[in-house]
Each structure stands twice: as structure tokens, then as C-alpha cells.
């Protein structure tokens, strides 16, 4: 099938989405399956087919998702029901929606570089346990407990670490 002229093409909208927690490496295919699963589960096959979601690009912690024009509301609600991508807990925060990818690229903030000050405090303690700093930016500090067991991520602030 040849390329249609612009007036006959389907109108699309693009959403810029930020993936939490920061530093999570997202595979586009896995995220696409998570989005399809969420939209099908919430809206059913018929509406999911109308939405036609697709992951267009991923840049750092940002992802650009495409949908058909007029279905932004349905897609944004479906995105808010995504809690996992494969086995990784994630949250998708919608930053902006636009008719062009270029506009969304302008809204992408530069990748957050970890604080150099925190590099010295790679190990920290919280609630009488030792943790390894996984991510640190501004007030936010993500830590993982040291050891083989209970290696869940904790979301803290610098003030928490100073206090304990």
C-alpha cells in the first residue's frame, strides 16, 4: 500500500511521558505491551484498536507515545493504570501532548545528572539499616538495601538521611 497524501492520512497525536523511577531502563517493546495491556483491559479491544497506541521514541527517562487524534483522554487514563513494565514497578507521568514530535522534543528536559556531592555518600544508613545510593538528584534520594535479600528500592529525601 503506497503512502497516502497528507489529507487522507489518519490524524495522530503524540504524548510526552516521563517514566518513574528515574534511571529505569525501559525497553520500548515491553512498554508497548504494557500500554496495550492496560488500554485493552480498561477500554476493551474495540476502543484499544481505535486508540492505536505506539511507542515512538525513548530518550532518557522520557518516552513519546502516539495515539489517534481524539483518543488522548482514553490513552491518558489507560497510562495512569500502568503500574509495572515486565516485573519492574513504574509510573508514567504525562508531561505534554502535541500534534508533532518536534514540539515534544523541545519540552524534554536535559537528563538529570546525579549530584556530585552525593557520590561520596554512596553508602548510607536509614532506620538502622545500610543502603546503597541508587539515584540522587536535588532533594530526592533513591536507595537500595545492601545485601542479597530485600533489595527493594526505597524513595527518600536527603533530609531523611540526615535525620537518621
Amino acid at each position, binding site marked *: 500500500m503506497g503512502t497516502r497524501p497528507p489529507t487522507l492520512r489518519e490524524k495522530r497525536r503524540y504524548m510526552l511521558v516521563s517514566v*518513574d*523511577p528515574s534511571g529505569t531502563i525501559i525497553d520500548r517493546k515491553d512498554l508497548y505491551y504494557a500500554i496495550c495491556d492496560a488500554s485493552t*483491559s*480498561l477500554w476493551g479491544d474495540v476502543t484499544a484498536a481505535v486508540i492505536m497506541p505506539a511507542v515512538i521514541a525513548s530518550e532518557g527517562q522520557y518516552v513519546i507515545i502516539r495515539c489517534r487524534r481524539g483518543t488522548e*483522554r482514553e490513552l*491518558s*487514563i489507560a497510562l*495512569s*493504570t500502568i*503500574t509495572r513494565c515486565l516485573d519492574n*514497578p*513504574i*509510573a508514567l*507521568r*504525562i508531561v505534554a501532548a502535541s500534534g508533532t514530535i518536534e514540539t515534544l522534543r523541545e519540552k524534554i528536559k536535559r537528563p538529570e545528572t546525579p549530584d556530585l556531592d552525593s557520590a561520596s555518600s554512596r553508602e548510607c544508613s536509614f*532506620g538502622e539499616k545500610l543502603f546503597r545510593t541508587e539515584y540522587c538528584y536535588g*532533594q*530526592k534520594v533513591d536507595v537500595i538495601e545492601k545485601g542479597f535479600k530485600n533489595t*527493594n*528500592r*526505597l*524513595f*527518600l*529525601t536527603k*533530609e*531523611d538521611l540526615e535525620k537518621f
Partner: protein
Amino acid sequence: MKITDSCVYPYPAGDSSVRRMALEARFLGFDRLVASGISSGEFHGIEVSNGVLIWDTHIRDLIGRIRQERSDKTVVSVQAGDNGFNRAVIGIKGVHILRGIQSADKNAFDHVAARMAADNRVAVDIDLSPLISGRGITRQRAIHRYRDILILERRFEFPITLSSHARSILEMRAVREITGLCSLIGMDTPDVERAFTGIDTVTTPPNPAVRVI
């Protein structure tokens, strides 16, 4: 009127500290959180109130527990049970919110309980976690139950609160996202705005019917 998430569980019940949850809540557009198991305070410009959830208890023990917990900034919630229990709970002074109505039995909250809730200014909580993380029949049941409660709410005008029941910052949702999720249960934007400020309705004392001048 402050936009409030009326139930979150910070560390140690969850994996995020109360300060981090407050930081995230500010980013997501909230003004206040009700957090379980912490002392009230203000973190990163967000007012955090202590929330007490009482569940699986008899009415007699419940009254004693509420008396212990009564303070200006504590928000007392009780887990819903059967119809008789819910009516009794709504009648107790000091109870602010009736929670978990979506997991109680079908007749747990009827028109009599709704009228009592309106008279006693006890809010019914809409827990968004089944809508966010539930799939299939769990979510369908929750949507059905919430739609049923909203029919009663429109008739009797008792307060409604919205809560994410987040145990992590990853389970918290933005105000705009919650508005979208609430549209699934038939709430429009003014309804959602009223529900976000429902906690103010139940925690502020009512104007006296007779005022001595």
C-alpha cells in the same frame, strides 16, 4: 480548600518516606496528604495530617479507640463492615471517614446509612487503587460499587473523599490523572473538586444552629 489525597502509607508501611511523598505530592498538584502512622506536620510545603485507620474491631472497642485518637489534626477512618456496623460507626462522634466500602458486602451502605452520613458529616472514601492496579472483575466490581455510592451521594449529599492508598510514590497519581480515573465512575470535574476537598468538610466543625450574640 486544599486538594487532598486522603490516604497514603509512608515508610515503614510503604517504601517511600513521608517527606518524599510530600515532595511528590507537590509535584503532582496536591496541597495536603493524610498519611497513616506519622505525626502531623508540614513537609516541602505540603500539609501532612495523621490518619488513623481502625479495622476489624467491635463497636465497643471502637469507641474507646476513637476516644484515644481524638485530636485536632488526626483524621479517624474506620473500615466498613456489614450494614449494621456501618450505621453504628456513622453514628459515633469522632469518626471522619468510612473506608473500604468497595470490599464490603453489597447492602453494606444503603439509603439509611447515606442519610446518616449526611447528617453526621461522615465521608465515604473512594479508594482509587482498585481502578489503578486492579484488573478484570476486581476493577469492574469497584466501578459498579462506586457508581452506586455516587447515586446515593447525589441524593443525600454526604461528603466524599478521594484517596490513592499509595504505599510508594510510584502509586501516587496526579490531580489530572485522578480526574480522568474518576470519570470512569461517572464523576465530572466539579464532583472531583468537591471530593478532593471533602476532608475539610468532615474535619471542620459545623456552624452552630443557634449562635449566642
